[in-house]
């Protein structure tokens, strides 16, 4: 279920931003900052972010005294070695307790480990810092948004993502997050707008298929919620066409097909989902 994705795009300011090795995880927000392009880390590459997102210049703001561990953390995050990334980031924080950037990376590593409660204070602190404090500072609020979302703090998440969206309106994962929050708040029209906006931002770019599938699956939910079943079916179908092993989308497709009275098609979709699930479960350790 892991995919390396490297892509180059042109930022609004003309800077070329490197986009990174990202993991796709259809879980909402699980890819924040990894599946999507995000803040730069410095050096020649940027940390994950929105495919079309303009981000601050990557090199200029790096610490005066480069520490090779920054690069180590970035590489570990890119290669999904989150506990290792956490360990390195933690050592940085231990040495430099006041270093907001170190705290940011620790928060990001914990966020990737889905340990949102522990990540929260680090990301809160990084988000509260001036945006020029360290290169990735302006994006800390994006990850803070995901932490709040997964801790059940919808209003807090909405504030964080809205803040980020105002600075980076073309950041697709933030639009996706705002779509999820609107859905949770039963603002279905808003939700639809956000998901469609994220899809537009993702466009037809190579390497964005998984992100598009993720958004399409959620857009399908919004349409289903409005009893727009044929349109929902189309979304789910596009999602599985784009990302064939998107088990969640297969499940959603099966559900809408059942409701449309196409039991045989639904059974096929469900069988596909079961097949993916079985394969996924054999690939991961028991909980």
């Amino acid at each position: 279920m892991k995919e390396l994705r490297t892509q180059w795009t042109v930022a609004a300011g003309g800077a070329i931003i490197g986009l990174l090795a990202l993991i796709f995880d259809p879980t909402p927000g699980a890819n924040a900052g990894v599946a999507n392009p995000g803040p730069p880390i410095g050096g020649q590459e940027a940390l994950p972010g929105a495919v079309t997102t303009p981000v601050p210049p990557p090199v200029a703001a790096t610490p005066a005294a480069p520490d090779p561990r920054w690069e180590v953390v970035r590489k570990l995050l890119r290669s999904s070695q989150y506990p290792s990334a956490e360990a390195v980031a933690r050592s940085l924080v231990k040495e430099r307790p006041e270093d907001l950037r170190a705290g940011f990376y620790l928060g990001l590593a914990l966020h990737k480990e889905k340990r949102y409660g522990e990540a929260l204070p680090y990301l809160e602190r990084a988000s509260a810092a001036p945006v020029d404090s360290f290169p990735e500072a302006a994006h800390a609020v994006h990850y803070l948004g995901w932490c709040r979302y997964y801790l059940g703090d919808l209003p807090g998440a909405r504030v964080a993502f809205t803040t980020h969206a105002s600075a980076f309106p073309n950041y697709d994962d933030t639009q996706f997050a705002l779509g999820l929050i609107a859905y949770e708040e039963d603002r279905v029209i808003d939700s639809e707008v956000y998901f469609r906006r994220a899809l537009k931002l993702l466009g037809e770019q190579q390497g964005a298929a998984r992100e598009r599938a993720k958004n399409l699956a959620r857009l399908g939910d919004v349409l289903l919620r409005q009893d727009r079943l044929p349109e929902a079916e189309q979304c789910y179908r596009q999602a599985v066409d784009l990302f064939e092993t998107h088990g969640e989308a297969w499940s959603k497709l099966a559900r809408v097909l059942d409701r449309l009275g196409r039991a045989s098609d639904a059974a096929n979709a469900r069988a596909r989902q079961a097949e993916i699930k079985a394969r996924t479960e054999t690939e991961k350790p028991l909980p």
Partner: protein
Amino acid sequence: MNMIITNTCAVALTLAAPHLYAHAQTAPVVAPPASIRFEDATAGSGIDAVMTSGKLPSTQIVEVKGGGLALIDFDGDGDMDLFMPNGATLADPEHGPGARLFENLGGLKFRDVSERMGARPTRWAFGCATGDYDGDGRDDLYICCFGADILLKNMGDGRFTDVTAQAGLGDPAWSTSAGFADLDMDGDLDLFVVNYLDFDPSMPPPPAAFKGMQVMAGPRGLPARADILYENRGDGTFRDVSESAGIRKAIPGYGLNLAVVDFDADGRLDVFVANDSEQNSLFMNRTEPGGPLRFEERGMTSGIATNIDGAGQATMGIAIGDVDGNGRPDVFTTNFSSDTNTLHLNLDGKFFDDRTAQFGLGAASRPLLGWATSFDDLDHDGAEDVVVFNGHVYPQATKVAMDSDYQQPPLVMRRVGARFEVVTDPGAGLRGAHRDRTAVFNDLDSDGDIDIVVAELNGPLRVLRNMHDQSHDWIKVRLRGPTPGTSHGIGAWVELSTRTPTPRVLAKRWIWAGGPFQSTASTEVQFGVPDSWKDLQLEVRWPIVKGPAGFAPYAEVKYPVTPGSTVEFVHP
């Protein structure tokens, strides 16, 4: 049909013509400021029980579920008494401190009559079902155990006798919950037993990891045990018909709870089974009156087996209510932390749709691990609220380490308009963090509002008094069916409607078997009645019942009713 009214002035008993009024959707109620308040009334209540479930800190899966609770009117005096099948410890699973029985004396006072029970099981027990399995007019007890289950016959003098073997019961699988209901419509109570998994405490699986921490192993990887359906032969014995009835066709799940409800309004009772860590099951009843029991598993195809993302959840608690006002029973379930509780709307009796977000029931539950739950109109504004009792299974759980604390407060959500909103101060009784597990909900002090008894893992039972305490803004309904299988109206629904200014349904309740979590749902229906509701009438529909003329169609009867009444419907 007869109707008996108590607690109110005389009311003309007029039988209205069936189908006189159009069935309208229940209108959402815009509630006044929150007024849900509970106090802890344990002290002085006479309930001094501690529920045993292994030891703290829990180290094995068998220790973390906690035990069960049951509402049972064992002495037939009209109020609900309390039974606690107790747990035991790993050191001696067969010999725990023993079950407890508390007689309701009124006014939230109870008397411990455990010593007079006669048969008083000490085996490690979990959930419990109540019902008059032998048709002698007295409710009996079925106790789910880690080991052979136990059937206790109510002897009528406060004593119980273990009749497990005589009744043909006593399956040794680890069962968690059970429900008595007349599933084949022949007049007696059949029994559905929810099984969990095979577990040998002497050979526990290796520890697992959760959020980067080493924790006790969960169910995954352990063999699930299939549920069992017992048909009541009508002579005080049961036979296992799981195979022939189609229950075994379903993939065995890690069963934890059940709700026996007529989901498709065909007069036959269906069975929803809550499974741990995987998809839930929905057994739709296809039994023909007079024919053998037959079920079709439709969990996945109906949409109720998983959440909106197609993910199986660790489902524990179940609440049944008409959340969207379409007249059909919706299903609310409680789940693990870092997941959400889930509301499945019953769209048409055939399909369910996860509408957790629509009703605002998801986000607030993410940091919580939910167990017992119930829909009740706690503030009598006409709309059902929901309470969820919470507590983590991992002793190491903290908000920092696992995004969720070990001890957690109850989640109290009040219906406000089209959504539910968290009640931040529901009173001292529902404040504070605990390791809560099971609970029962009922008007235990007969003042018209719903009280609660909740059991904490290896902690004292708490009696929570609803402080609503107004005298005439409620209606309670009890059903008395013509057969043992319908003696408490299991499978019936009760609808409260008005004729003014136009006929419309105001609220609807189902009487169901199963319960909040390893416990029994109240068979007594309660409605809160706001001042704006006038010119009220009750309608009852029974499930298909075998009567003198065979399998009679179920009755629909309307009666006028006034607030402040306890109404007893007696089926002819």
